[in-house]
């Protein structure tokens, strides 16, 4: 008649385990450094991003201008760094409202089901049928180009994906007896949804959020490239790539360097999301 609990050695905390993973370390390093660049671009950029130097137009990379200069003589390196400010802001602002709206709506329709859930289901089907970019471009076309309108457009379409994921997770968690136990206890719906179901259901959504931030940067740059997002002369990676496009055969670095910045940040968010999935998983 003995009951013993077997448990893993306590010395390896979850964070400790995560820190051993090279993927997590690399992802955290990239995103950490990107955030620093976004917060204090002035500390890292050697020049003002919009300073026009007619004595140095279209120069190839050199010690003074590591990424060369564009056709107006602006320092490409400084512009890529200042663009971190806009593009990292995109990662947050284009996703965070979609996250909040999607999680709330998804949790509610997943919990209550019924007619609202059926309407939601058809609505999601309708949205998902269209390619994401096409819908966003349509919304931007209606609202007019610009960063704020772009955030609104991405949120209007993007929340659906969060809501769909959240709904499925909540329904899965409802199958557990702790949800039934909460009902038998007479707990309010709000308590059951937000204190019991949500913390157990949110992990995949957070992981999706991380990858979605990478997608938001990509999407934001695409719209910037198309002239629907950030507007020149603002330094933004998509805008920078577009500016270099006409000189791609002679000054390829103008488009390549912001492209590399996009790839690196995207990689950072993906690696971080992967590690987050392990960190947030409940044990036992």
């Amino acid at each position, binding site marked *: 008649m003995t009951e013993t609990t077997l448990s893993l050695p306590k010395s390896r905390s979850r964070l400790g385990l995560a820190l051993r993973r090279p993927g997590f370390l690399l992802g955290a390093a990239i995103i950490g450094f990107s955030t620093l660049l976004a917060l204090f671009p002035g500390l890292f950029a050697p020049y003002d991003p919009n300073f026009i130097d007619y004595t140095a137009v279209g120069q190839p990379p050199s010690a003074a201008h590591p990424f060369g200069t564009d056709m107006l003589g602006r320092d490409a390196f400084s512009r890529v760094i200042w663009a971190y400010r806009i593009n990292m802001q995109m990662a947050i602002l284009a996703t965070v409202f979609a996250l909040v709206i999607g999680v709330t709506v998804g949790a509610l329709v997943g919990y209550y089901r019924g007619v609202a859930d059926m309407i939601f289901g058809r609505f999601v089907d309708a949205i998902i049928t269209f390619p994401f970019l096409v819908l966003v471009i349509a919304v931007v076309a209606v609202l007019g180009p610009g960063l704020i309108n772009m955030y609104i457009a991405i949120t209007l379409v993007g929340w659906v994906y969060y809501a769909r994921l959240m709904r499925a997770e909540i329904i899965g968690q409802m199958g557990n007896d702790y949800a039934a136990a909460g009902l038998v*206890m007479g707990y309010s719906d709000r308590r059951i949804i937000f204190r*019991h179901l949500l913390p*157990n259901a949110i992990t995949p959504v957070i992981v999706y959020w991380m990858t979605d931030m990478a997608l938001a940067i990509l999407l934001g740059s695409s719209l910037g490239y198309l002239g629907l997002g950030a507007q020149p002369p603002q330094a933004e990676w998509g805008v920078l790539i577009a500016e270099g496009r006409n000189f791609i055969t002679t000054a390829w670095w103008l488009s390549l360097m912001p492209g590399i910045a996009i790839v690196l940040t995207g990689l950072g968010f993906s690696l971080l999301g992967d590690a987050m999935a392990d960190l947030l998983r409940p044990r*036992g």
Partner: protein
Amino acid sequence: MTAPVLEIRDLHLAFPLGRSLADLIARRPGRAVRALNGIDLDLRRGETLGIVGESGCGKSTLARAIVRLYRPTSGTVRFDGDDVFATGNRRDRTYNRRVQMMFQDPYSSLNPRMTCGQILTEALSVHQMRPPAEIPARVAELLDLVRLPQDAAGKLPHEFSGGQRQRIAIARALAVEPEVLIADELVSALDVSVQAQVVNLLLELQERLDLTILFVAHDLRLVRHVSNRVAVIYLGRIVEIGDSESLFAAPLHPYSQALLSAAPSLDPTDRGRGARLQGELPSPLNIPPGCPFHLRCPRATDICRKTRPDLRSVAARGEVACHHAEEIALNG
């Protein structure tokens, strides 16, 4: 005889399956799993009533309907005379406080992200069982009551064994000081040695706290050990209900006989008594007419195929739903 705490009358519960295309063409209503088909049951204050039956007979559905996790199709559940499904009473939390339930699966019945202490604190504070300042002391008391060490309060469910988790579930149910406990297969997921610990703890608590228990289980020996009275359920109907000792000693319904003879016994003189059951449990989608048991019953006659027997008192030994119960009572 004391007045019943819970009165269940003619309780029906069907889970609709949705109408198929064939149903639509034939213009018939969609099919439904008829889980409960007219349950009449009184739970007397202070007793332990065992509910037994095969898997899929409706035991758990009955337990969940009583605590309002399912809404019955028809029939009533009265607690202290009040209909718990009446519109005004649906959101009444006092009923939730007074009738509590414990679940089968110790791995899913506790929120994996809340510590044992948080789980108990939540129950205490939502129902305002104690002023906030006294809640930690009460949590300690509850842990003591179910014989968990005090440091359990700070641990998450995954740090406990199955038996310990079920004790946390018991403590959670007891936190709100209920009068009735519904135990749905409380120990069937546990090792036999741990089962005994948990069940004995439950019985001891029942005595100390004056609880009424509805004990749903498929383990007959366990039910016999625990219950004062036993109800045997077949396809969502009670086929026999009576005093635990007499029912186990001499069951009157052929189904009870078959069920009991299927249970392994340590007594060598017990061996081979009664008939083995033939056939499968009919689908609750399609319940046979007449006596629902007649397809498998060794004593079935014409009347069994045509008329459904009602539950009636037989030979002062309890109630049986069988046309041949008197005969069985006489001849064994």
